[in-house]
């Protein structure tokens, strides 16, 4: 937390980098902050219980975190536009069941087709969410709270009392979530690449920057001629599609799928996004931060387990971290605003 003031700008120097560096530093701090917490947590836990760093445990944590990080990637796009998608857990659930059934009944099917099916299901729900928010002008909190229950209801109707069991899959469906490359799960690598691509796209393409613009000041975005409705619809569509893909991964990871798969994931995902430094009122934050936030929450879960702390503490600690993240966010924003304002004042504007 070093929002120190850079030295006063010298007259005549065009576009000094000092305040830019300040702003960048503070934005990087958001991600640095959680990385630091993550490292401390891992170090302390490993110090007490070295088993925490066993390759099996690390792999378990990474695969679990991967699913949340993937969901957080989609959620971040939505939150950046000053919206929220609460239906991701339900979308994951229904996609997990349908893709699992596909994988257990059509053994000849290539894996990509299963993924496409999951993606298609999620995309469909995402578009529905997006249309209701943009065309219906209903707040996304309400829309996605409704679809959370509706999609879960459909899931329960479709699944009934049945479940898909691991023995029924063709083997490659289960093994894909176990495969590793130099000790790192393939899935984690794939999702890390996806997150990196998302980060790059949001920084580099006009439509990506426009998502931030819409969230930062919706009225100004409209005046700037940005198709705000289309951008918000896009964010929801991607969030849904990603939740669909995450469902396939979930089925592969846990094997047994019933109608409760992914229940209350939405809250963990929103928590990860906020802990990761994405402003809940839109306009700032990065998918990398959100992914690290997901990893942090998952690490804490695992650490508490390894340390023998009752799992009852899990949620309380996650909630505490959330408050900490929001307070930190607020603190940085206030400091940043104050220092930028002082700078303007000193310039004598």
């Amino acid at each position, binding site marked *: 937390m070093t929002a120190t003031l850079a030295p006063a700008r010298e007259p005549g120097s065009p576009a000094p980098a000092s305040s830019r560096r300040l702003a960048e530093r503070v934005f990087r701090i958001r991600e640095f902050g959680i990385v630091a917490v993550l490292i401390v947590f891992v170090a302390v836990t490993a110090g007490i219980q070295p088993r925490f760093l066993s390759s099996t445990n690390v792999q378990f944590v990474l695969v679990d975190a991967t699913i949340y990080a993937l969901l957080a990637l989609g959620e971040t796009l939505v939150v950046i536009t000053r919206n929220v998608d609460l239906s991701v857990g339900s979308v994951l659930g229904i996609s997990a069941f349908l893709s699992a059934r596909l994988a257990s009944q059509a053994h000849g099917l290539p894996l990509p087709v299963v993924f496409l099916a999951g993606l298609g299901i999620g995309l469909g729900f995402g578009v529905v969410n997006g249309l209701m928010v943009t065309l219906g002008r209903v707040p996304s909190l309400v829309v996605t709270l409704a679809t959370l229950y509706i999609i879960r209801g459909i899931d329960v109707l479709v699944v009934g009392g049945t479940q898909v069991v691991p023995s029924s899959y063709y083997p490659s469906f289960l093994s894909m979530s176990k495969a590793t490359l130099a000790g790192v799960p393939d899935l984690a690598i794939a999702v890390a690449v996806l997150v990196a691509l998302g980060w790059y796209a949001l920084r580099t393409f006009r439509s990506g920057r426009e998502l931030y613009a819409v969230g930062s000041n919706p009225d100004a975005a409209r005046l*700037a001629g940005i198709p705000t409705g289309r951008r918000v619809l896009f964010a929801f569509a991607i969030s849904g599609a990603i939740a669909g893909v995450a469902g396939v991964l979930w089925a592969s990871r846990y094997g047994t799928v019933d109608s409760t798969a992914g229940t209350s994931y939405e809250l963990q995902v929103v928590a990860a996004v906020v802990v990761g430094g994405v402003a809940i009122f839109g306009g700032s934050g990065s998918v990398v931060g959100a992914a690290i936030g997901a990893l942090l929450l998952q690490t804490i879960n695992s650490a508490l387990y390894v340390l023998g702390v009752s799992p009852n503490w899990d949620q309380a600690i996650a909630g505490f971290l959330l408050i900490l993240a929001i307070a930190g966010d607020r603190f940085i924003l206030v400091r940043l605003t104050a220092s930028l304002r002082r700078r303007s004042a000193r310039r004598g504007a």
Partner: protein
Amino acid sequence: MSDGPGEGRAAGAAGEAEDAGAGPGAGGARDGAIPVLALEHVSKSFGAVRAVIDGSIELFGGEAHALLGENGAGKSTMVKMLAGVHQPDGGRFLINGEPVVLGGPADAIDAGIAIIYQEPTLFPDLSVAENIFMGRQPLRSGRRIDSKRCIAAADALFAQLGVRIDPGRISRGLSIADQQLVEIAKALSLNARVIVMDEPTAALSAVEVARLFDVIRALRADGAAVLFISHRLEEVFAICQSVTVMRDGRHVLTAPLTGMSAAELVRAMVGRDMPERIPGEKRAPGEVRLKVERLTREGVFTDVSFEVRAGEIVALSGLVGAGRSEVARAVFGIDRYDAGAVSAGGRRLRKASPTSAMAAGIGFVPEDRRQQGLVMEMSVQQNVALASLSTLRKAGLIRASAERSFASDWAVRLSVKYGQLTDPVSMLSGGNQQKVVLAKWLGRQPSILIVDEPTRGIDVSTKADVHNLLDRLAADGIAILMISSELPEVLRVADRVLVMREGRLTAAFSQAEASAEDIMAAATGQVEAQAQ
């Protein structure tokens, strides 16, 4: 699109531009020419409010045109029609003589119209350069944003404007002046044929204004049309060649500025029949009820001192944004202030405490009655009783019968027109809603009443009702502080008129000396006369 933004139209010409068009040349340039852009007899209503009734304006390439009018004359609505934000209900929108329909802001931008809004419209979380080029960022291969060129182009624009703003910093925390300069840079980056500036100078320093004028001259030299809206008449004379005046949503006059005097323009802006005050109701003010001493809130208002006596109506006049409502809010304790003191009935009030203000007998009728004055879903009766619940309570419960008789009593005294006392207040007309807000505060029997724009959006006959009511209240010995942007109202109702400009009191008039021209002149900074 995107042929190197930043090489603004004005780039090369800045500085060396001759002010050739200022004289008769301007008239000559437009003989027989087709206006680049014209609105012909346009109208626009929002619900029952007719913001523009019959507006016309013509803009010619190479000319800076001023649009003048009082607050509420319809200027900002005209701007929003030019921006494609609002579509006219009637009339024609012509570009180069061809009728067009702008579906939205994007269409206006494509048509080469750039708008600098009165209120800056920035993205606080994004960098200054991104704010300027949002949606139009320079690209490199693969449709990727070229952020280096983006920064460089922003730097070039700021160099052209002669200001130093770091394009890489986020825009949160920029001063209002810097925000305005970013808006100006944004408009320049569009290479527009028509540039609309809605009060661009309100927040700028003299040096920055001079720079902006250089830029406007360069734009003109390059053939762009500029629409310049400002309350500062000296600026209008300095930079514009022709003028259109609007009043009450209607076009009043369009003329070249050469040969016009400031007094003529003010008269055109104000010129309507002043309702006469009924003679013989001269009130003799009593003791001082409200005393405001050297009240200051940094950056909002400075060193404001005045008194309001019992039985006296004092009007606080001035332009929108002069700080009048802010002073009232600070007096009532809604906002805090940095220095100074407020006392009511000889007792000093606690800072930022509406409770303390209410206990001292102050009532406050806010500007925005729908948001701040009424609970729209609640009944007429409940709204009237809302501020007096403590007196209508028995054992902690509100007695419906007491509430009812209290409300009907006040409704009769203020001649509120309603169907049933139990109807939601949203069913009443604007004027009757305002009477309900007044009734709500009068029910507390205040000794001091602050009313902010008491007749905004109210029809003429109800307006007269409200004016008569204020007269009666003053006659009953209440001290009234009224904020009003309508000069006829100020002249009709007030015993004394205080004028604010840019956060300071600039003039004070007694009822006998007050004239619309003098008040307008003090509000726009034409003279700094008779202060305090």
